[in-house]
């Protein structure tokens, strides 16, 4: 299309449609009236009215993680935009593609402390991959196109577009759908062949190979290649929190999550391997622990990542490969498959298998104090839900119980706030997840502390008929911090007791949701079924032990083989 005269708001909506946007999560406001006036007539874009801007950002984030498409959120100027900040920081930290559109006061009054003015452009600069403040209506086609291009290429992330009112209201004759981009933005995707050959040699010769799969494997849709490589090499796979689902956790080669709250044997495997192929991960301290001499000390460390800045950032690596994980894995497989496949049954595999089985059996023998049932509940949820069901989590103990015990079987079905660790993320992310995958069951594994931070969006669910199930692990504590106080601060529970908490069943019912209290694990199955069959958004208030602890764990300052709470893991 060339040279059409449109208003700024019309241009924005036209370009959104061109980018394939089908849904946006947002809240209108004074400076966005022109944009919402166009959206009012627009049938191709479903707008979901959220009850807090933070939730709009989390919902767009959840939508993006489940669908792989770019999530869109909209907020007005000033408080609308500042409320978005946590959600955007969260999405950006976990490399989730999100485009945020914010209203801004008219260009003529920017910088005058106008009503509902905040400098969104400067506030969001350090928490986005890129951001724009649009100064001319005719720039809109290029800006919107680039926002989507930047958000969903290279290392994915958040792009914010700040839209002053007069830019949206003004008209311009523009060419829609430009292809123009930035000279300095070249998302590096083709891996170096020389490095690939070196990696193939190392992997072919390794006696104790191990693959560490991060979130990059999922976001690059490289899970098929990962599985092929693991099977060809008979190499066990451990994942990060973000990598959960990169390989089915029921696969015999999958050791589950490594790191601070990971599986003991997954951490052991990292310590003992002689070649570690790390894919799409940034070696966060939650994965490596703090004693780096325990992290793969005897291994050739290979790091594949799309972001050059991640290479040698947290750990010095032996062979870096900058590029798309999917491409890199395909190239490695192409060369490797000319060689003979590794036979299964190596000493390494036997060792891993022994550790794995030993741990699985001793988990059942945990001495239980009182109502300590959190792990049982997660395993129960894992059993009840089908392979396609999506689990989102809040942050804290509930999250780490889920990360440790929930068996993720498919990519993009375990959605959690990894980098930022945002309490209140899980529920709005579940809303986004359900909108992206309406036919799948969506369950938010929540804590009572986290859920209270964003629970007002139950209203959104009821109003927009978005059926998610919130399972609250109700212990009346900010559990993870309490756990640290118990273990490392002489049980001084400073400000972690929640005291009088609301009756979550009544709270949910007041919003028009289905709700039920689950006092014992054996009641969970029926309760979950009732929730799914209610045809409503549902909240299950699950009573768990007040002083449940997520163990084993790497204590702060410790290394990956220095986990505490492993009394029951003596045999490894």
């Amino acid at each position, binding site marked *: 299309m060339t040279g059409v005269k449109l208003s700024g708001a019309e241009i924005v909506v036209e370009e959104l449609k061109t980018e394939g946007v089908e849904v946006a999560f947002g809240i209108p406001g004074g400076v966005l009236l022109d944009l919402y006036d166009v959206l009012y007539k627009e049938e191709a874009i479903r707008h979901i009215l959220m009850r807090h801007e933070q939730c709009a950002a989390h919902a767009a984030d959840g939508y993006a993680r489940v669908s792989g498409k770019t999530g869109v959120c909209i907020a007005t100027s000033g408080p609308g935009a500042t409320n978005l900040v946590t959600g955007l920081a969260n999405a950006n930290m976990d490399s989730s593609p999100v485009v945020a559109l914010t209203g801004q006061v008219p260009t003529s009054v920017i910088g005058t402390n106008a009503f509902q003015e905040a400098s969104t452009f*400067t506030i969001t600069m350090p928490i986005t991959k890129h951001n724009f*403040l649009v100064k001319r209506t005719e720039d809109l086609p290029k800006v919107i196109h680039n926002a989507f291009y930047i958000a969903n290429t290279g290392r994915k992330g958040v792009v914010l577009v700040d839209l002053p009112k007069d830019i949206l209201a003004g008209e311009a004759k523009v060419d829609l759908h430009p292809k123009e981009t930035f000279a300095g933005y070249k998302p590096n995707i083709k891996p170096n062949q020389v490095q690939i050959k070196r990696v193939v040699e190392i992997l072919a010769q390794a006696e104790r190979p191990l693959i560490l799969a991060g979130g990059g494997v999922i976001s690059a849709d490289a899970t098929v290649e990962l599985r092929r490589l693991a099977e060809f090499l008979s190499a066990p796979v451990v994942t990060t929190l973000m990598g959960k689902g990169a390989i089915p956790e029921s696969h015999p080669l999958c050791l589950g999550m490594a790191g601070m709250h990971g599986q003991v044997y997954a951490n052991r495997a990292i310590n003992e391997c002689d070649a570690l192929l790390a894919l799409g991960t940034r070696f966060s301290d939650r994965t490596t622990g703090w004693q780096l001499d325990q992290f793969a000390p005897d291994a050739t460390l290979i790091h594949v990542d799309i972001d050059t*800045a991640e290479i040698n*950032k947290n750990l010095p690596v032996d062979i870096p490969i900058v590029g798309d994980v999917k491409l890199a894995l395909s190239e490695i497989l192409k060369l490797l498959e000319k060689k003979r496949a590794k036979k299964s049954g190596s000493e390494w595999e036997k060792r891993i298998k022994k550790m794995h089985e030993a741990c699985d059996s001793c988990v059942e023998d945990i001495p239980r104090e009182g109502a300590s049932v959190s792990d049982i509940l997660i395993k129960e949820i894992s059993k009840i839900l089908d392979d396609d069901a999506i689990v989102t989590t809040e942050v804290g103990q509930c999250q780490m119980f889920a990360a440790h015990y929930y068996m993720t079987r498919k990519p993009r079905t375990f959605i959690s706030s990894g980098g930022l660790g945002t309490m209140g993320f899980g529920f709005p992310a579940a809303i986004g997840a359900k909108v992206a995958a309406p036919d799948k069951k969506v369950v938010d594994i929540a804590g009572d502390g986290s859920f209270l931070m964003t629970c007002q969006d139950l209203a959104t669910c009821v109003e927009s008929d978005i059926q998610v199930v919130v399972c609250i692990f109700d212990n009346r504590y900010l559990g993870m911090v309490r756990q640290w106080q118990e273990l490392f601060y002489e049980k001084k529970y400073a400000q972690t007791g929640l005291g009088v908490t609301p009756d979550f069943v009544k709270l949910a019912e007041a919003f028009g949701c289905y709700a039920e209290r689950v006092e014992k694990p054996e009641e969970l199955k029926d309760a979950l079924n009732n929730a799914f069959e209610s045809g409503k958004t549902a909240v299950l208030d699950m009573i768990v032990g007040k002083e449940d602890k997520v163990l084993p764990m790497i204590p702060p300052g410790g290394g990956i083989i220095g986990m505490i709470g492993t009394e029951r893991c003596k045999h490894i």
Partner: protein
Amino acid sequence: MQTHIISLLVEDQPGVLTRMSGMFTQRGINITSLTVSPCEKEGLSRMTVAIKGSERELEKVRKQISNLIEVVKVVDLGESEAIVRDLCLLKVHVKNSEARSEVMQLAESYGAKIVDAALDSVTLELTEEPERINRFVDLMRHFGVKQLFRTGVTAIGTGAGLER
């Protein structure tokens, strides 16, 4: 801690400077000097940033700055392989004619120009390597430096002029 000079080619857009400097701020790295100016290509600007920091720290920041969408090119100029210049304007106190002639002699030996003179002061201009300017300024302190202005360093790679 070594001084590093980073030369950046960036899109001439509002906000680029904040984005770039934010990368240093976040890591608590102090920028010792900074110059921004037009360059040979239209629509692009060149920034020359001098910072003190370890090699490892600098390597991380350099990569993260390269990631900025509006940064077209980043070159780390080692001091040995670059021509580095700083421009200094300083107003020196001269209490009598003896001091005045001494200042003027020293200025001449350093290649500094006299750009203004008053009864009790002389204003000098010197374009040089930063270290040589430091030495010159130190000398002038004996007479009394009333005001000192420096532009901060700008630098260009030696040889054929191709940036690495």
